[in-house]
């Protein structure tokens, strides 16, 4: 199975949607690739991914995350890397936001839309968050 994911949003809910599916797929022996674009870049930014905001008006769910013992985003990101999930940062968005590759976590690639399309061309599952 091959899974292609686009992560285009950057709050904590988005991070869980992306990394839960990605790690579950990788644990099922799938090949997984994620294209991080626009606010989705927060999910792999060295500092930002450790302090992602909850969506406005949903701050009260913080307690629920703790109660359900949901692992921190950091842990899921490490696990995804550990299981060889391919992560591609969007070059164009990085240019727009004046971000450099060294501001992101280790091990990511940088590429454009065509990079993702060529990866996703033969994917069995394609998701956008």
């Amino acid at each position: 199975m091959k899974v292609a994911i686009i992560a285009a949003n950057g709050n904590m809910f988005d991070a869980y949607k992306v990394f839960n599916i990605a790690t579950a797929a990788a644990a099922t022996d799938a090949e997984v690739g994620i294209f991080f674009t626009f606010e989705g870049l927060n999910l792999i930014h060295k500092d930002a991914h450790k302090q992602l905001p909850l969506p406005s008006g949903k701050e009260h769910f913080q307690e629920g995350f703790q109660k359900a013992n949901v692992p921190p985003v950091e842990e899921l990101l490490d696990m995804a890397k550990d299981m060889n999930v391919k992560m591609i940062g969007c070059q164009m968005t990085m240019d727009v936001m004046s971000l450099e590759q060294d501001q992101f976590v280790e091990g990511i690639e940088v590429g454009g839309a065509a990079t993702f399309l060529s990866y996703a061309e033969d994917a069995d599952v394609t998701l956008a968050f």
Partner: protein
Amino acid sequence: MEVNVNHVLDAKGLACPMPIVKTKKEIDQIEPGQVIEIQATDQGSTADLKAWAENTGHQYLGTKEEGDVLKHYVRKSSEEDTTETKHQDVLELENLKDRLEGDEQITILDVREPAEYAFGHIPGSINIPLGELEDRSEELNQDDDIHVICRTGNRSDLAAQKLSGKGFSSVKNVVPGMKDWDGPVNQNH
């Protein structure tokens, strides 16, 4: 009854997708054919583990609930489905069913792992896993009419050869095996 397993994974208190991720890591460390018990409190883990096992080719055996804890049993996949059988004396599953319905005195030896046996076996069958047969064959009577069964017919083939080699007079390998059995089953877990 306790279900005998080779490995126990404690995933209690962990939320999705951690039980799956941990299971994947643990199963990579064990031998093909071995059974792992995954203890979880995530209520979604039953459906998740079933789906995960189906996609990865491992064998989901079943789940039992103990209070708030779900104990899932999974057997790591092995190459058994591809091997051809070597033991000459083979009996089709349908014929075994007929014999059971008749009055014949037959012995059914189930050589799967105890956890597989626990989640469904032919009533009256004896469980000695293939790996223990060498040491436990004296529990069987050499002159009995022994019908050996497993899940797909491969482990039972090896067991039948082993028993014949030890001088058992009437040993039949039942094929294909429990995966296609639609007769009565007992559970003991």
